[in-house]
């Protein structure tokens, strides 16, 4: 009896192996390093959705010795630089070939050393702080950087709102917030404007005082590139306090929560982002339709996208990130970490968010950002313009 049971169990255990052997030459594991909880959890989930969608469309990769199945392993870095290293370590021990992520720059900076020590290439998806790739030879990224984003937004503030005085608000100690606010301020001052900057402590929930300071300082624009969790509070409190100054922010605010908070208010909110849902280019349009259909099929995925099928820019970037990783695997012609590290810099890819190629720092060469603003009646994003780097007077 016992022998019989053991035999059956052995056969059951061997089944998946046999199934694998039938179709695939092997398995390659790609790590997803994203926050699923904490202050950036909502954005991290959307970025991961883009990756899963890409994996759904392209579940295998063809190398010279056969077709490999691509398996995704996800860890939660909890949006927190002090918890991120253990999540990164987990990916290293899982034996992943390449890492995708993260949303939020602080957690990337915290994990860079660990990936580096393991010889593991990481492709940052929407982490825009320059420190992520600077000095970390194995960290690449496919989005634009904060100095560029800050400049774009400063120019927009000047051109669109004729602002001469700006107020910036950032979370103390958050690399993304503080960095972007700094680059915005530098660019804005370069254009002849004046800037008053303030920072709020982590966990703060009363923004009335900051908004009052902004009004009292005579600012004509509020620049608040904070996490979504704080952003919704800033928006509801600005509306409650009757603030009429236009509010601007960076890519993190391209989130359905912002639309929900702004709906029905009189606020003017503009943000810069990586991708526009209304993009009519063939690649982008195909992605938007396909992604929406994929989301609507499954209530859980829809919930992870914030309960609506509005396509976030980070999902599009997540999709491109996965495709770039596949390109790297093909070019290396193996799932070996060192082989990938040797070739990833040469990868180029025509993605839904535009053409991707890396410069000597490992940053994507990007020259355009999309500016969108909230439509407070319908609760949707309205496309404003594409800002090219060449349009900006240097």
């Amino acid at each position, binding site marked *: 009896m016992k022998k019989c049971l053991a035999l059956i169990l052995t056969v059951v255990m061997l089944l998946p192996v046999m199934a694998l052997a039938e179709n695939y030459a092997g398995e390659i594991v790609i790590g997803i390093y994203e926050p699923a909880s904490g202050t950036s959890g909502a954005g991290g989930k959307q970025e991961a959705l883009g990756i899963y969608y890409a994996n759904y469309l392209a579940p295998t990769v063809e190398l010279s010795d056969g077709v490999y199945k691509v398996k995704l392993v996800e860890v939660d870095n909890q949006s927190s630089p002090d918890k991120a290293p253990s999540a990164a370590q987990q990916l290293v021990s899982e034996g992943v070939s390449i890492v995708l992520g993260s949303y939020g720059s602080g957690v990337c900076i915290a994990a860079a050393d660990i990936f580096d020590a393991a010889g593991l290439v990481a492709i940052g998806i929407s982490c825009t702080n320059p420190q992520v790739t600077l000095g970390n030879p194995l960290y690449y990224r496919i989005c634009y950087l904060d100095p560029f984003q800050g400049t774009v937004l400063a120019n927009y503030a000047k051109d669109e709102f004729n602002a001469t005085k700006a107020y910036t608000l950032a979370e103390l100690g958050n690399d993304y917030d503080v960095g972007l606010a700094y680059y915005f301020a530098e660019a804005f001052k370069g254009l002849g404007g004046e800037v008053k900057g303030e920072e709020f402590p982590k966990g703060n929930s009363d923004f009335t005082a900051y908004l009052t300071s902004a009004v009292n300082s005579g600012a004509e624009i509020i620049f608040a590139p904070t996490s979504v969790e704080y952003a919704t509070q800033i928006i509801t*409190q600005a509306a409650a306090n009757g603030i009429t100054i236009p509010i601007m922010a960076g890519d993190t605010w391209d989130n359905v929560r912002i639309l929900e908070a702004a709906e029905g208010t009189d606020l003017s909110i503009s943000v810069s982002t990586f991708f526009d849902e209304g993009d009519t280019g063939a690649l982008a349009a195909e992605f938007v339709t396909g992604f929406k259909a994929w989301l609507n099929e499954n209530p859980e995925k829809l919930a992870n996208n914030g309960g609506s099928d509005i396509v976030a820019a980070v999902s599009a970037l997540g999709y491109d990130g996965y495709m770039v990783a596949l390109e790297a695997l093909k070019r290396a012609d193996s799932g070996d970490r060192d082989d990938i590290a040797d070739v990833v810099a040469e990868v180029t890819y025509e993605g839904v968010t535009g053409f991707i190629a890396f410069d000597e720092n490992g940053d994507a060469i990007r020259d355009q950002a999309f500016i969108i603003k909230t439509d407070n009646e319908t609760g949707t994003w309205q496309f404003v313009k594409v800002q090219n780097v060449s349009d900006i007077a240097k």
Partner: protein
Amino acid sequence: MYDFISANLPYLLAGISVGGQYAMIAIGYTMVYGILRLINFAHGDVFTAAAYAMVYMNATMPLYLSLPLTILFTVILGYSVERIAYKPLRSAPRMSIMISSIGASYLLQNLMWYITSGLARQYPTIPWISKTVTIFTATTKMVTLVTPVLTLVLVLLLVQLINHTKIGMAMRAVSKDFETSRLMGIKINKVISVTFMIGSFLAAIGSMLYFTNYTAVVPTAGAMPGLKAFVAAVFGGIGSIPGAVIGAFIIGIVENIIKAVGLTTFSDAFTFALLIFILIFKPTGLFGEVIHEKV
């Protein structure tokens, strides 16, 4: 002058409103301390749990049901924390109960983290108190005006309860002398349970007011207000209800004045610097009773 007032009124309003909300939490701390000589660290998390209860209940039922049910849930939660984490340790050294309360606090926090995966939830809109009003030159939510009034009314009721009812008399007796009141036939377990229930009831009301203003609910949302309310209770003299209320208003207002003068980054540091300062120079706080050595 006009400009000065119109520029600074929003700070003052925010200060009074947040002060009232701290007061609601501070009363819970101070009453429990008065009776058990225990700092109930889980109180701030009960406050957060009340907010989550409201978020989830409001998703499935109308407001006239979800409001009272949230209060009921919070009262039961406060009672259960006492029953499970503190009652078995009644005769243990005071330090053990305190450590147990820290454990209860983290347990609640992590449970909430587990259930909600730490993502911010939007607090439901409670009509009327969410209405926008204009006072003088400042625009704010109705809740800012309602909070101080409601706080004072509830405190007056509570003082009546303590001074003029049988259970209130028992509470006073237990806080004076735990052992003797037990010998006099007072059911101390009942008194302690009632104390926790009153504290949780006020925390539930406080959480409704607080989160109407600051609408994002996260598992750690109650930690900071909880700590500040604790400082307020110490500032007012721990064990004293009027002291806790006055301490809470002072902390709320001063915190916002500090933000108004531009030292935004230091507003939290101030509260805790104040705690150290008080513990050094007036350990009994504003209204605290002086403890006489019994010979």
